[in-house]
């Protein structure tokens, strides 16, 4: 497969849902990547739409960055609805 680049595959399983990463395929080009992904990941109605992206084009965050990236959101409890206590009389809000 040395000549065939790796593509990451994303499938939309149903109309209205978002595409979700399912795995990868090798292919000579993007079109063939779609065809291979169809054969590999949607043999049983698993999808209504496929995206393929050259794996080399994906930029990912590193696990080392977990704290600087995600910790700041932990201490902002006021971003959650449950932070705001309201009297019972208000009912569902």
């Amino acid at each position, binding site marked *: 497969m040395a000549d065939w680049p790796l593509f990451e595959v994303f499938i939309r399983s149903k109309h209205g849902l978002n595409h979700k990463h399912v795995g990868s395929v090798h292919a000579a080009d993007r079109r063939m990547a779609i065809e291979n992904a169809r054969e590999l990941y949607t*043999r049983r109605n698993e999808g209504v739409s496929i995206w393929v992206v050259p794996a080399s084009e994906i930029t990912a965050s590193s696990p080392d960055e977990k704290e600087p990236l995600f910790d700041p959101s932990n201490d902002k409890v006021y971003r959650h609805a449950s932070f705001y206590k309201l009297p019972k009389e208000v009912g569902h809000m």
Partner: protein
Amino acid sequence: MYAQLVETGTSKLRTLDEMSPEERQFQERINDEIKIEPKNWMPDAYRKTLIRQISQHAHSEIVGMLPEGNWLTRAPTLKRKLQLMAKIQDEAGHGLYLYSAMETLGADRDEEIDKLHDGRAKYSSIFNYPTLNWADMGTIGWLVDGAAIVNQVPLQRTSYGPYARAMIRVCKEESFHQRQGYQILLTMMQEGTDDQKAMVQDSINRFWWPALMMFGPSDENSPNSAQSMAWKIKRHSNDELRQRFLDQTVPQLELLGCTAPDQDLKYNQETGHYEFGAIDWQEFFDVVKGNGPCNRERVEARRNAIDNGAWVREAAVAHAAKRQRRAA
């Protein structure tokens, strides 16, 4: 199982205190059932062992297509032919899910396939037995895929994320394989002629012991298990899985109206488990070492497939280049 005798490269299990801070953090993550993902730090031995295990698993799926391919053109009806073809296509798919999981560890697919072709990498012992009659298609689906399911269901919880996710996909498809196999045998036993029934029994006689061997050596001869279990890339011992398989399979065997080639097979009321006779481990090790009935034929078929298919891969690259030039 599909992965047998996977070397871990470690001789003794280390305690958390003996580990480096990084390794300790890694092990604690596993203990807490948090998945390891491709970019996380992992010990070299974990990475290497997983590459060996996943590639062996993938090779098994790919080589596993060959015994069934033998009966594609000989299937008794068009319906059976279509079913068998769908099953074989699934095996190819399973191999590809697994190779793709393996690549997330930094392994090179071509290199790992080379290892299969020059004998450095193993695949499951079961695929080195010939498929001599049509009932073998039923027995393989029922016993071989049945044993695979018993092994793969716990692997859905394996510690390495991409492997676990590939296993979830595989398991979803595997039950079709087992059911179609069992139905082939049921049909032959319930509607078949005496010759066809005899074919089923003959097939079970040949595949029974090799299917039990799929789970690998008994626990006392399984030196790599402790490390693999600590890493949670193996979740139950070989003997435990073998027993689980046997307990669920014997009632199905009886329902078929067939027998096992094992005079010692009996149900133990007290333990609630079936007991079975001695496994011929010499046979198992012979087959694993490359001296089973079909080892050479299987590897040669794979080599030919790659070599004779080279022009297709080259043509695809040329075609893609042409398409790109035209679009430019």
